[in-house]
């Protein structure tokens, strides 16, 4: 009797297990199939393209193996060096944006009425379409008729820069717009971070006679370090992925001064039709983001101090 029940139980258990097994696969199948087709398979294609010299308009007959040529050429390509340097300069937007956002978050968190209103205000650029925003800034930055330069002349700067039309100023202009767009996101994340800091820490610090600056240095900043680290990493990754703003605003110009990696890849693949070479640029992008992500994994435990 006991054994019979045991066998039955085991049968029941294994049929339940089979059911779970089937259900599990069915639930995750659409996602897995999608990822396989649209992400994993393209990675495989990319690995092949990396070592090829191919103009895809000419069809498959035109496909030639090129070994490591693409990467060797990248190493010597002055335009790519310029692009990579631009990317590194562009990273500077991340700390600037974070500093402004933190300041705004602290003010909005404690020192104002109508918090929600301010959240929405500073978040507006982030949800607006990049194309529309870029078009507006293009006009605002117009060298001769734009309101920005009009204002600058009004306050006595007779020879204001040409902004996005000026090779020396174009990257800075794009960076300023990029900061303006990203402030909302950074501020919202910082606000969430601030709200998770226990209030009694501040109260006991006040009892000990700590002023605002000390409280900020000794409580706010250290307790926000996970948020700061997170924003730093996602921000840097975001700069590597930037494309829309460049494509609409400057097309990498003038004179390559605003060419960023994704733009250069786009130009190489879709305007110059060099698929193999573009794929190699994509690989550099991929590896860059991978390295930053690895730093994040390692740093998450070490860097962040509670």
């Amino acid at each position: 009797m006991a054994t019979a029940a045991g066998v039955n139980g085991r049968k029941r258990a294994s049929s339940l297990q089979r059911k779970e097994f089937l259900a599990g696969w069915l639930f995750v199948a659409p996602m897995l199939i999608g990822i396989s087709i649209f992400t994993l398979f393209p990675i495989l294609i990319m690995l092949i393209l990396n070592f090829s010299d191919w103009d895809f308009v000419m069809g498959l007959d035109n496909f030639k193996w090129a070994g490591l040529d693409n990467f060797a050429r990248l190493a010597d390509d002055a335009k790519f060096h310029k692009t990579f340097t631009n990317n590194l300069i562009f990273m500077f937007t991340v700390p600037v944006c974070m500093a402004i956002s933190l300041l705004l978050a602290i003010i909005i968190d404690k020192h104002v009425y109508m918090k929600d209103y301010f959240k929405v205000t500073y978040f507006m650029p982030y949800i607006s379409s990049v194309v529309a925003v870029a078009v507006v800034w293009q006009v605002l930055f117009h060298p001769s008729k734009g309101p920005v330069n009009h204002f600058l002349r009004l306050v006595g700067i007779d020879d204001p820069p040409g902004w996005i039309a000026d090779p020396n100023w174009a990257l800075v202009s794009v960076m300023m717009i990029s900061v303006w767009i990203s402030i909302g996101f950074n501020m919202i994340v910082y606000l969430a971070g601030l709200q998770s800091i226990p209030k009694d820490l501040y109260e006991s610090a006040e009892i000990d006679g700590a002023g605002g600056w000390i409280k900020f240095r000794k409580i706010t900043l250290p307790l926000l370090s996970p948020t700061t680290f997170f924003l730093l990493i996602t921000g840097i990754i975001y700069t590597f992925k930037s494309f829309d703003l460049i494509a609409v605003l400057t097309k990498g110009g003038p004179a390559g001064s605003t060419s960023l990696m994704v733009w250069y890849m786009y130009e190489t693949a879709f305007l110059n039709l060099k698929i193999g070479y573009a794929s190699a640029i994509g690989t550099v992008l991929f590896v860059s983001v991978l390295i930053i992500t690895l730093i994040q994994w390692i740093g998450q435990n070490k860097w962040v101090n509670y």
Partner: protein
Amino acid sequence: MPVQKTLNWKKAVVTLIMFACGILFLLPFFWMLSASLKFENDVFTYPIQWIPERWNAVNNYKTVWMGDYPFWLYYLNTIKVAVLTTLTSVTVSSLAAYGFSKVHFPAGRWLFLIVLATFMVPQQAILVPQFILYRSLGLFDTHIGLILLNSFSVLGTFMLRQFFMTLHNDYIESAKIDGAGHFRIFLQIAVPLVRPAIATYAILRFIWTWNDYQNPLIFLRTDRLITLQLAMQKFTTINGEYYSLIMAAAVSAIFPLLIVFIIGQKQVIEGIALGGVKG
């Protein structure tokens, strides 16, 4: 001792200063709106007439919407792509999220790790191979291709999984004892319980798809298929120096999103704060 509720002067002053900063911050939007209401000749008059003296709003918007350039068609395209992308993405992601959190099967753990690993791949890096794949699959230059591209979101799966995990297993176990299968539990118990999270993700996905410029640029070619962001740029090229028209188009492109954002404001901001998500 009763705490007197008086206006905190320091706080009020800071609020006023911040209010001024906020207006300064949003000045580009005000300029855009204002320019879209004016005659072309008045766009660059100084000092700036924030409220136009001569209005040409009706004409500007009429030209944008009913002129030679079929703006309404691009609008419909965008709505179609954004709505369908949101629907499929939410469906796929919540199914997967449930599978990865509430169904216990041995492969689940490492399958989830694979899915998570693909999150590290920036889509921009694989644009070129995706383009080649799309051409050979016949998905290039179709709406369905564009929709599929954003339908398999790791981010959405990860975000929703966090919420499914907070559901008590007791609910699910007792439903199982009553003879319900996983699919019924998913539809009748799990999904209703995480509805706020699903709404948050849906709004974010809608906004991201609406604003997507890069993918339509690469994966669409035919003029009547393009979405608003591309149309916006083409419109700018065609209308070169007609800034009042361009600004009217820009306002039209931003407006629906603004509505979505204002309605779903709480969800969007909470979603961003919670997951720290970034499209």
